């Protein structure tokens, strides 16, 4: 029986799970896309590389929208009195970690098997009902789904139908409120089912408590973009850019809007037909078709080991982890993990109820989104997938993989700093990362012997030059934070 959500506490628990799940999906997609080949010296013909570039663009779009879904889940959580969380288990985890949904959490390179796994994550229920756990979706049925013509022409019709269906469900099972199963573990068969349960849960709990009593969160804690947001529309801080659409949640209608959007973008449930091809499920279906058609399923990605880690954490199985042993790759990996954790800490503070001025909100966003995500976390991840995983650079895993990768490692829960000390503690983190770059780059340039590293006009490898660029930028970011962003140029006209 699918668990029915009937209390605020259950809704909060499930939204925490949804946040964690979106976070996990995002990390897996990013790991896969940063492993994909970029350059002709990596053994692909120019046309093949163009296919891989298109797939990479699609997967980064999907990953951005998973960040958006994480943001929406946090807004939903905050709107009903929940507190934000960026805690998640390290990967890999067992296949039944999310119950019968069969979402295997693992960091694997962007090959055909991985794409099939992602396609199943985003699949509409209809296509997975009779499948065994981890069995790929039928590609023929997936392609049929993605080419279907739904009669729904606009969002007004879409909402009307969703609401009608939710109402019909309640009418058909009037006893559900008293006989529902408690929400323990993950009781849903898919991501779609999870969000449909959340949607129904919002209606149910609002019906029991009253809408005003359910939405007790401070509207000021909602992080969103576009018209009506605190951030200037069109500025860097406007979160509704680059194909994402964060909305504030303050009542039942906006909560349902947020949930609908997650389902539209992901599985394409009852989506407007003109949008269907851009849904995550259909984008992954297209990538799978392309990989199979062009025979690139195994060669589109670098030979990156699965689940690379700098050390063994208590929440993972040793047999599924690849421990990095190359000293320099370990250093780069630790800088990646430190940067990733710092970004989460900044986001946690941003979403938290800790008192902050609008200027401080902007400061957090100015550090976390641009540039930490784009100028550090991504390039570090890309570099890692070019570096050797092992001390002996000729060593490979049993399946022939030899390159490192970003482990998205967390050493326990992501917790808020004490409010009074937060800004200084953030500064320490920035300064620590600068020092880590200093140590790494003081040790010469160990990467000149790797393929594709020569750059005209430079004695250093391309990787070293890129890390040096990052070090300089991290020094600047640390200085900007120390100066409270007063040393940047003009920002408005």
């Amino acid at each position, binding site marked *: 029986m699918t668990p029915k959500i009937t209390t605020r506490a259950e809704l909060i628990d499930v939204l925490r799970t949804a946040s964690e799940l979106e976070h996990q999906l995002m990390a897996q997609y990013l790991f896969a896309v940063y492993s994909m080949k970029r350059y002709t010296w990596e053994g692909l013909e120019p046309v093949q590389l163009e296919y891989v570039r298109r797939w990479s663009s699609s997967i980064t779009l999907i990953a951005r929208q998973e960040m958006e879904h994480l943001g929406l889940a946090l807004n939903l959580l905050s709107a009903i009195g929940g507190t934000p969380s960026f805690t998640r288990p390290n990967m890999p985890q067992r296949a039944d970690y999310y119950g019968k949904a069969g979402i295997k959490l693992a960091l694997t390179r962007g090959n055909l098997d991985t794409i099939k796994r992602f396609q199943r994550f985003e699949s509409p229920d209809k296509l997975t009902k009779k499948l065994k756990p981890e069995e790929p979706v039928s590609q023929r049925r997936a392609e049929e789904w993605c080419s279907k013509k739904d009669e729904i022409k606009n969002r007004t019709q879409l909402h009307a139908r969703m609401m009608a269906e939710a109402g019909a469900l309640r009418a058909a099972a009037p006893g559900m409120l008293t006989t529902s199963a408690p929400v323990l573990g993950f009781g849903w068969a898919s991501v779609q089912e999870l969000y449909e349960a959340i949607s129904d849960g919002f209606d149910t709990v609002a019906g029991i408590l009253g809408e005003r009593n359910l939405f007790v969160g401070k509207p000021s804690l909602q992080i969103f973009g576009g018209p009506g947001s605190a951030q200037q529309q069109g500025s860097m801080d406007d979160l509704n850019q680059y194909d994402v659409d964060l909305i504030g949640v303050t009542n039942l209608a906006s909560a349902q809007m947020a949930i609908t959007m997650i389902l539209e973008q992901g599985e394409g449930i009852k989506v407007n037909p003109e949008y269907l091809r851009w849904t995550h499920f259909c984008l992954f279906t297209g990538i799978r078709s392309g990989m199979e058609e062009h025979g690139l399923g195994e060669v589109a990605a670098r030979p990156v080991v699965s689940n690379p880690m700098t050390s063994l954490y208590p929440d993972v199985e040793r047999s599924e982890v690849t421990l990095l042993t190359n000293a320099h790759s370990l250093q780069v990996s630790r800088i990646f993990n430190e940067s990733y954790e710092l970004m989460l800490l900044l986001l946690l503070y941003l979403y938290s109820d800790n008192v902050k001025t609008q200027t401080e909100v902007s400061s957090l966003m100015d550090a976390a989104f641009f540039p930490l995500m784009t*100028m550090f976390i991504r390039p570090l991840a890309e570099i890692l997938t070019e570096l050797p995983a092992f001390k002996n650079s000729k060593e490979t895993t049993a399946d022939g993989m030899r390159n490192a990768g970003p482990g998205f490692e967390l050493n326990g829960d992501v917790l808020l700093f004490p409010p009074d000390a937060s800004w200084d503690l953030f500064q320490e983190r920035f300064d620590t990362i600068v020092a880590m770059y200093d140590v790494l780059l003081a040790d010469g340039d160990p990467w000149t012997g790797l393929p594709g590293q020569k750059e005209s006009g430079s004695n250093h490898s391309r990787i070293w030059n890129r890390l040096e660029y990052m070090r300089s930028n991290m020094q600047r970011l640390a200085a900007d934070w120390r100066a409270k962003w007063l040393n940047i140029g003009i920002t408005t006209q």
Partner: protein
Amino acid sequence: MLILDFEGYFQMRMATDPDPTDELRGVSGYTFAFCGEPDLDHKLHFQPDEPGVWERDFGPGGGPKVGVTVTSAKRNGIDAPELVGGKIAFVDGQVIEHNGLLVRNDYFIINPFRVTLTSGGKLLLDRVDNLDPSDPNMPENEATSPMLQRRQATTFTSNSEEVAAATGLPNAASVTLIQNRLDRKRSLEALLASTPKKDAVKRAELESRIYELAIVEQWWNLTQGTPGNRPIDRRAAQLALQLSGWNVDMNGAIAANRLGADERYPWNIAFWMGGWDGDAMCGYVRGTWTIPLAT
């Protein structure tokens, strides 16, 4: 005083947000080095023969041609026609913001900033501007706010009619900008149809460009707008976006001075950039270089 008005299309093969600023091929933004093309070099190119320029085919509809030249020249108020047609360059210049670390909200600086005038194969003028005159080699990441502000643009104008007129658009209305992208898409589709199957690299490049141009008809902000009233995609909006207010008293070393400029004073240059065509990775620049004369 020597007054040189200049304008024309430049090329800048750079990655776009949210790609990192040193991205070489383009992944998550909307500009790319497609198959068969060299890596993105992130540099401003005002002349078509500069190393790093890569002019794409546009099909029967045509497209921008790189070339920034002097359109009017006056020496102490008197026309100097011999300088008209002279070539302006921003040598190795990059449009910089480091994703918000130096400047935010795309109020870019150009760095390094070295301007030249060449005519008849001769370098006539060549001067640099330094962020910090006392330390010409100072890394840009060490620049203070006043140093950056000297170099920044100051004003964004959306749907600029001045840009539209300069680049030959009938007007700057959003519907016109979207139509321009769809016209380019049609032109590339015609080019693709005439490209032999054996030219697989060219065909793949054209297919990718057509795909990108089709996105102007797509919308991502699902909660905002209805057909006909949606936020305009940046691939179209930037065709008439103007970034103006660059106004720099150039303070640095002079490597060429064949026109009798007074080297004791700054040489002022003021300009706007806009009309960015992401498919061509070209934009339009118009400005004036005002140089004191020694006599």
